[in-house]
């Protein structure tokens, strides 16, 4: 009897663990046909990670990290291989509004004030005015922008604009947050502050976050998993687990554990670049 129970439980457990995967890519490739010949943006990407993880893609320019994110978001179509997002195809995930996307530029609509910008995806989803107002207020509070509802984007600093765009992505209440170098254009002080905020947010909401970055300290500070990529063709060089405690503050960046992981990432980046020579 007990054996039978274990038997019957195990396939179910298997199924459960499958649905726990936020992203699962197998043999994924993407080649752009250009006038100068094909560009291999992504080559044989195999990658999977669980829901609730904070995954960084790091690598030099042209390594395909943004392209990989855009494939996950169904903004680009792979030429080979398969990818599942929350267990379904990227298109289904997009249709179900399973993810929120934050671009490098804040990409706020210049003719909408901050509240209307954050409310835009909610309008498109067809939510009522009352629920829109409530969600806008909640998410603006989350990124500490309460009181700026009536301001227009140009009246805000770069950091505040980026926070507004994060609030907009969160307003959809997605399980998955895709962030493409969201703090790349900001100065280091603002960046540190926003890094702390995004970590707190991740802790509070238990969302899966995929984060593209150029910065080694940023990737180590934020991530549970660091995907080191290398260019021409864009591919994964190594995946480094980053098992620092979930609760982190900026001082963790001086600890030996942190520096050790950073060293491994740096080596991975160096290795990835020397491959081609």
């Amino acid at each position, binding site marked *: 009897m007990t054996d039978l129970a274990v038997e019957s439980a195990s396939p179910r457990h298997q199924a459960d663990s499958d649905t726990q995967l936020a992203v699962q890519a197998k043999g994924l490739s993407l080649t752009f046909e250009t006038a100068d010949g094909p560009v291999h943006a992504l080559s044989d990407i195999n990658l999977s990670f669980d829901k609730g993880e904070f995954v960084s893609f790091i690598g030099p320019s042209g390594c395909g990290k943004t392209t990989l994110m855009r494939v996950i978001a169904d903004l680009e179509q792979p030429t080979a291989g398969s990818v599942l997002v929350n267990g379904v195809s990227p298109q289904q995930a997009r249709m179900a*509004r399973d993810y929120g996307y934050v*671009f490098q530029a804040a990409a706020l609509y210049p003719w909408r004030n901050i509240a209307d910008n954050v409310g835009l995806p909610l309008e*498109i989803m067809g939510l009522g005015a009352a629920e829109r107002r409530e969600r806008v207020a909640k998410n603006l509070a989350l990124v500490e922008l309460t009181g700026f509802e009536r301001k*227009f984007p140009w009246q805000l600093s770069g950091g505040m604009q980026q926070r507004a765009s994060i609030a907009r992505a969160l307003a959809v209440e997605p399980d998955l947050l895709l962030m493409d170098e969201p703090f790349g254009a900001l100065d280091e002080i603002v960046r540190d502050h926003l890094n702390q905020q995004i970590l707190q947010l991740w802790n509070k909401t238990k969302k899966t976050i995929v984060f593209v970055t150029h910065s080694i300290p940023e990737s180590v500070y934020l991530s549970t998993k660091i995907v080191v990529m290398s260019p021409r063709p864009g591919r994964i060089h190594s995946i480094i687990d980053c098992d620092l405690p979930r609760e982190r503050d900026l001082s963790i960046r001086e600890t030996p554990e942190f520096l050790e992981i950073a060293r491994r990432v740096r080596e991975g980046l160096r290795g990835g670049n020397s491959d081609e020579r």
Partner: protein
Amino acid sequence: MSADSQPLLARMGPVLAVLAVLFVVWYGSAMALNAPFEHDQNQRNGVEDLSGMAWVGAVLNQKRPVLPAPHQVAEELYATTVKKKITSKRSLVHHALITLKTTLLGFGLGTVIGILLAVAILHNLALERALMPWIIASQTVPILAIAPMIIVVLNAIGVQGLLPKAFISTYLAFFPIVVGMVKGLRAADPQLFDLMRTYSASNWQLFWKLRLPASLPYLTTSMKIAVAIALVGAIVAELPTGAVAGLGARLLAGSYYGQTIQIWSALVMASVLAACLVALLGLVDSWARRRMGQQT
């Protein structure tokens, strides 16, 4: 740094200087062009030419000068606007209002047609290839040649009065609107389009919430151009309709009877009208730019 912070005089200075030069050139030209007629006249009558200021006064105050002097045009304008009732057929305001009505109707129609064509072109690339050459070709046909045809053809099917004239305005005005709107509807930042895709927005939502608002400054700029040429269209349209009413009619009647002062005052009235319309749309345009978040 901006023009607003400068004192009024400093801002007006260049404008006044140009105006002063214009007046000098105008008076000089009027003297040069009208003097021969005065001289011939005197010779025919066997009279000696006057001298000094009296000669200048005579030359600049002819009844039908080749080139009227500014003060003659100003007098005529004053006489036909302020001193005449608007209802009078000799009132320039009466004629200007008729032309204005035609212009506004033609401009309005042109704007609507222009926007509709731009939307059609946007949603159908084949349509762009099919329509654009015709739209461009339409503007290469001289309006003076085609205007009488439109009037005659429309008259034959019973369309008379304001509408045929307005159609000629429309014919000119829709062009900048189409070109501006096609560009404007595609002008939004590519990231904003990507964003709409991540929300899986419908084409309808994409149009109303992104394309249309992003195109608004392009539309208002095009409208500024369109209203000026709509006025030209209205004046041209008044010529073949028998010169009954409107600024175009005043121009034509003036040239029939050699009333150069009347022609010039109609011209001045037309340019004042154009300036007012363009300035008005300029205000709309800068409002739209501010509203759409463009910093100027």
